C-alpha cells in the first residue's frame, strides 16, 4: 500500500461526509430529478393516462353504444306496435265506413227502384186511362156508326146527344166488374 493511502486511512472517518461529494451527489440527483420530473415522467404519465382513457373510454363508448342501440330498439318496437295499432284502427274504420257506404247505397238503390216502379205504375195507369177513354170513344162511335147503318142515319146525332152509348158502356163495365167479383 502506498504511504499516502495509509495517511488517508488514518484521518478518514467513513461517517463524515465530504462536502464536495455531497454537493456533487446533490447536483447529480437534481439533474436526474429535474429532467425526469420536468420532462420525461410527465410525458409518460400523459401517455399512460391516454392509454387508460383509450381502454376505459373504449369500454364506456361500447357501453354507451349498446345502451343507445337498446334504446333505439325499444323505440322502434314501440313505434312498430303503435303503427300496428294504427293500422288496425284504420282498417276497422275503413270497414265500418265501407259497410255504412254499402248500406247507404243499398237504401239509395231501393229508393230509386221504388221511385222508378212507382213512376212506371203511374205512367201505365195514365196510359190505361187514356187508352180506355180513346177506346170508349172509338167503340161508341163504331157502335153508333154500326147502329145507324143498321137502323138509319138519324140515330147518330140523337144517340150522341142522349148519352146512350156512354150509359151502355157503363152498364157493360159494371157487368164486367160484377162478373169479375162473382168469379173471385
Amino acid at each position: 500500500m502506498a504511504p499516502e493511502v495509509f495517511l488517508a486511512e488514518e484521518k478518514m472517518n467513513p461517517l463524515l461526509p465530504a462536502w464536495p461529494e455531497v454537493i456533487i451527489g446533490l447536483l447529480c440527483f437534481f439533474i436526474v430529478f429535474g429532467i425526469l420530473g420536468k420532462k420525461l415522467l410527465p410525458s409518460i404519465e400523459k401517455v399512460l393516462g391516454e392509454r387508460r382513457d383509450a381502454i376505459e373510454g373504449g369500454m364506456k363508448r361500447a357501453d354507451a353504444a349498446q345502451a343507445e342501440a337498446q334504446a333505439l330498439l325499444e323505440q322502434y318496437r314501440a313505434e312498430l306496435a303503435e303503427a300496428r295499432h294504427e293500422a288496425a284502427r284504420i282498417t276497422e274504420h275503413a270497414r265500418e265506413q265501407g259497410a255504412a257506404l254499402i248500406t247507404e247505397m243499398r237504401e239509395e238503390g231501393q229508393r230509386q227502384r221504388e221511385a222508378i216502379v212507382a213512376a212506371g205504375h203511374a205512367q201505365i195507369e195514365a196510359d190505361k186511362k187514356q187508352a180506355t177513354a180513346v177506346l170508349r170513344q172509338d167503340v161508341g162511335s163504331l157502335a153508333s156508326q154500326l147502329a145507324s147503318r143498321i137502323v138509319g142515319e138519324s140515330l147518330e146525332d140523337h144517340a150522341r146527344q142522349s148519352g146512350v152509348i156512354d150509359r151502355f158502356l157503363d152498364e157493360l163495365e159494371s157487368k164486367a166488374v160484377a162478373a169479375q167479383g162473382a168469379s173471385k
Partner: protein
Amino acid sequence: MGADVQLASEAGCHFDSGCGFPAPGLGEFDFKPIFSVGGVDFTKPMLLSIICALLVVGFFWAAFAKPKLLPSKFQLVGEIGYDFVKRSIVLETIGKKGEKYVPMLVSMFFFVWIMNIMSIVPFAQFPVMSRIAYPAGLALVVWVTYMGLTFKKHGFVGGMKNLCWPSGIPGWVMFILVPIEFFSNIFVRPFTLAVRAFANMFAGHLLIVVFSVASWYLLSPTIGALYGSVSFVVAVGLTAFELLVQFLQAYIFVMLASSYIAGALEEAH
C-alpha cells in the same frame, strides 16, 4: 482509483511468498484524486455519481422521450420500473396524495439503485452509496421535504405536534415520549436513513473485496489453491447477494422517504 491500484500493486503478493495478508480496510473507500481544482479533489466516486446520473437520465430519455400509446420494448421496461416505484412504493405508502411526490421518489429510487449497482459493474466496482456523502445528501433532500411539508401543512405548532405528539397515548407517558419522538423524527430519522444505505453498501463492498483479495492472495501451487477457490466462490456468491441488497437498499431508502412524507401529510390528530 485506490482499489484497482492496490490490487495491481499486490500482483505478486501470495500466500506462499511470505507476504502478509493485505487486509483491505478503510483505504478501499478512499481514492486518489483524478484531478484537483482549487484544492477540491475530483475522485472516482464523483465520476461514478455523474455517470450514474447520466445513465438514469439516458435510460429514461430513451424510454420516455417519445412515448407511444403502444410502447416499444424499451418504453415498456421503463414503464414497468416507473409503475413499480409509483404503485408499490409511493401510492402504497402515501396514497392518492402521493402523486405529487412520484417524480422525486422515482428519480431517487433509480439514482440510488444504479449507484448501488456500480458495486458489481466491472471497472467501476464501487458502490457510490458507500461514501456517506451521497446517502447523506439524498437524506438531506428527504429531510428538507419532510420538514417542509410538515410545517407547510400544519403550521409551526401543528407541525411540532405532528412530529412529537403521538395520538392515543395516556398523558403521563408523554413526558418521556414527546422528547423521544422529537429527537427520533427530527434528528434520528435522516441520520439512520443515510447510515442504513451507507453501511449496507459499505459492508457489502468490503466483503466482496476481502474475499476477492483473499482468493488472489491464496492462489498458489499449494493447498492454498483450494482455500483460494473457496474464497473465489464465496466472492461470486456475495456478488450475487449484493445484487439483491443493492435493490433492497434502494427500495428501503425510497420506501422510508415515502413514509416520512406520508407522516408529514397525515391529518392532525
